[in-house]
């Protein structure tokens, strides 16, 4: 590590003067301990930043925002995972084996399962939905099986969802357009998913009509696509194909 790199890292040292778990900063702090000049400069910086930090923390926060803290709490408490040491040989073996199995699975499964006419347009619909501003979705508290009326009131006829989804709670919905074709979009409360429903024939999206789901993955997103006549229904999760298959087989079977 050069002197310039050390100086740059020290400039990003937090007001606590500690490394915050960053190995680069740890090295830079060790180097500073050996150089009276660097240490003096760091001490002045930390003192100044501490003064700013104290003043920032003294800014009162509106009470209304504590409700959001509770929401974050409930979400994070389900997401917190135990820490894993990636230097542990057992963990490394598991990771390597998982990657190999996933590669084999993708190689075996992709060719058979992944494509149908309009696959890329299906992703276009989902990505369009992902960029829909939050305020264009209306909060809802309805079951899926009555959404037909709600979307009809909003000007979109022929909303269709598979009957297995009928009793799921919907907490938000709205309509956006792709190539001037309306797409119904909504948020399913549990299991948390987005759904999209539209006229597949008009968009050239034509998954098979045999009642099965086509499952596709792109980066961290996985979608399931099914069709009845002209109507296409897509569900989207942040997760793997396996996660979605599990949702389709367990949650929706009840």
């Amino acid at each position, binding site marked *: 590590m050069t002197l310039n790199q050390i100086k740059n890292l020290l*400039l990003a040292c937090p007001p606590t003067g500690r490394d915050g778990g960053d190995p680069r900063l740890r090295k830079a702090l060790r180097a500073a301990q050996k150089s009276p000049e660097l240490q003096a400069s760091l001490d002045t910086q930390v003192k100044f930043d501490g003064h700013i930090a104290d003043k920032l*923390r003294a*800014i009162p926060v509106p009470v209304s925002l504590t409700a*959001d*803290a*509770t929401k*974050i709490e409930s979400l*994070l*408490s389900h997401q917190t995972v135990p820490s894993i040491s990636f230097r542990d040989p057992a963990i490394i073996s598991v990771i390597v084996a998982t990657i190999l199995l996933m590669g084999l699975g993708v190689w075996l499964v992709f060719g058979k399962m992944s494509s149908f006419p309009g696959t890329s347009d299906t992703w276009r619909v989902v990505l369009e939905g992902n960029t829909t501003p939050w305020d264009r979705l209306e909060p809802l508290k309805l079951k899926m099986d009555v959404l037909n009326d709600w979307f009809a009131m909003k000007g979109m006829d022929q909303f269709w969802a598979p009957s297995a989804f009928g009793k799921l709670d919907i907490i938000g919905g709205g309509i956006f357009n792709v190539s001037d074709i309306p797409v119904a979009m909504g948020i399913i409360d549990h299991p948390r998913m987005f759904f999209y429903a539209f006229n597949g024939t008009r968009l050239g999206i034509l998954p098979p009509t045999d009642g099965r789901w086509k499952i596709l993955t792109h980066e961290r997103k996985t979608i399931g696509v099914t069709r009845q006549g002209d109507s296409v229904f897509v569900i989207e999760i942040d997760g793997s194909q396996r996660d979605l298959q599990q949702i389709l087989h367990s949650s929706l079977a009840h």
Partner: protein
Amino acid sequence: MESQRYMLGTGNLLHLENLSTISNLYRFALVLTKNALQAERLVGESVREVLYRGSGESARRIRWLIFQKVRQRALSQIANEETGDISSNEIVTALHALPEPSRSAMTLLCLESFSLQDLESLLDLSTQELGEALKAARSRLKHSLSLAQTPS
């Protein structure tokens, strides 16, 4: 009994941590907008958006996404709207007067919400660029804060 105590402890820690996350989000938004009402709205909207879209993400990633969303929204609003100049808090005024990315870098560093690596990725800066942004921020803040303390 042991696991019950552990769960209780973890829950309390999470609660405290998230109250601190919200508080720091609000303070960050306030520095960016210099408008208390706008900051409160930005935090509320960004938290809701990330919570609806963030299912399956890690806690660390969710925190990162919410701060990023607040920053994106605040910067686009500053560019597109006239913001009401409501906050007269000395430190908010001084930090708000800094140019980006110095303003965000200095505020986030002092709020201590992120590791160095997360800070670099959130602001899309290299270590060198982050160091330079912080150096410029401190230099300007020393000047503006000493001016603010000079008796007239």
